[in-house]
C-alpha cells in the first residue's frame, strides 16, 4: 500500500494529521484556541507593522541620512505648535489596503539599500528627480491622501491665514487642485527642473485617467516652500 501510514514521510504524516478530524479536542476548545491564537497572531502582526512606521526604523538605513537632514530643516519637523509629522505620516497610508500595498512596495527600498543605488551624495543627487517624481505621482493620483490625514480645506480658517495663503488655497479649491500641486518641496530639497518634471507627472496621470491633459502646477511653489521653511525657523 503506497499510502499506508508506515510508508508516509514526515510531510505526508503532517498533511494527514492536518486533515484528520480532531477526536481529542471538543469544538469549543478548538474555537477558543483558534480565537486566542488569532488575536495573538494579529496583535503581533499589527505591532510589528507599526514598528516599521517609526522614524527610527525609517532612518536606520545609511541612505536615508540625506533626506533626514533635509526634513529636519522643515516645518514638519520643528514648529511652534509641537506637532510633528514623521516619515510614515506622509509616506504610509492609514487605510489598511493602501498601507499593506505601500509596505510591500517598500521592499524595493531594501533592495536599493543593499545595492547601494543612492549610497553616496552624488548618487543621491543623480536619483533625486526620479525619486521625487515617483512620490509626486503617488500623491497626485491619491489626491494627496496622506497630507489630508492632517490637513483639510474644510478645516481651514482663511481669515487667520496670510492673505496670499488664503488666496492660493481658495484658488486650489476653485480649480480642484490637490496639496502636492503646490507643495512639492515641503519636506525635502527640490531637484532642478522639478516644475517641468511635475508637469510631466500631471500630464501622464491626466492621460491615464481621462485621456485629457491638465495644467495644475502652481506658479510659485518655490516661493511657497521658502515661506514655509522661513516659518519653521
Amino acid at each position, binding site marked *: 500500500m503506497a499510502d499506508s501510514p508506515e510508508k508516509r514521510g514526515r510531510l505526508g504524516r503532517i498533511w494527514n494529521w492536518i*486533515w484528520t*478530524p480532531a477526536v481529542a479536542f471538543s469544538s469549543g476548545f478548538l474555537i477558543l484556541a483558534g480565537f486566542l491564537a488569532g488575536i495573538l497572531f494579529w496583535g503581533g502582526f499589527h505591532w510589528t507593522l507599526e514598528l516599521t512606521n517609526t522614524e527610527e526604523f525609517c532612518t536606520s538605513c545609511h541612505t536615508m541620512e540625506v533626506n533626514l537632514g533635509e526634513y529636519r530643516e522643515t516645518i514638519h519637523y520643528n514648529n511652534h505648535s509641537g506637532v510633528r509629522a514623521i516619515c510614515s505620516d506622509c509616506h504610509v497610508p492609514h*487605510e489598511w*489596503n*493602501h498601507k*499593506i*500595498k505601500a509596505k*510591500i*512596495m517598500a521592499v524595493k527600498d531594501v533592495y536599493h539599500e543593499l545595492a547601494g543605488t543612492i549610497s553616496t551624495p552624488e548618487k543621491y543627487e543623480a536619483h533625486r528627480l526620479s525619486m521625487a517624481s515617483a512620490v509626486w505621482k503617488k500623491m497626485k493620483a491619491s489626491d494627496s491622501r496622506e497630507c489630508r490625514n492632517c490637513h483639510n480645506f474644510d478645516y481651514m480658517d482663511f481669515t487667520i491665514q496670510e492673505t496670499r495663503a488664503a488666496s492660493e488655497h481658495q484658488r486650489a479649491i476653485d480649480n480642484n487642485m490637490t496639496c502636492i500641486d503646490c507643495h512639492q518641496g515641503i519636506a525635502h530639497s527640490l531637484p532642478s527642473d522639478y516644475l517641468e518634471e511635475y508637469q510631466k507627472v500631471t500630464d501622464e496621470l491626466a492621460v491615464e485617467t481621462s485621456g485629457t491633459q491638465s495644467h495644475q502646477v502652481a506658479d510659485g511653489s518655490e516661493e511657497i516652500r521658502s515661506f514655509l521653511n522661513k516659518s519653521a525657523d
Partner: protein
Amino acid sequence: MLELLGTIGANIISLPGILGLALGMMTRRLWLGGLMGAVVGVLETVIFAHWNFGNVAMVELLIAVVIGLCAGTLGSVIRIKGTTV
C-alpha cells in the same frame, strides 16, 4: 510590476483574502464560495474608494475580484476536505 505585486499582496491579507476564505469555508459549493469571495472583492474596492465609483481603478477592482474568487474557492475546498459534515 511592483505596483501589481503590492496590490495582490494587499488583497490577500485584506478583506478579499481573509473574509473570502472564511465565507468560502461556509459552503461546499465551489461556485458559491468563489462568488461570495468575488463579491467581497467588489465591496472592498468600493469601500476603499469611499463609495465613489469615480475613484475605482479597474486594475485594482479586477485584482480584488480575482483574489476574492480564488480565496472563496479555496475556502470551499478546505470545507470539503476538512469536514465530515
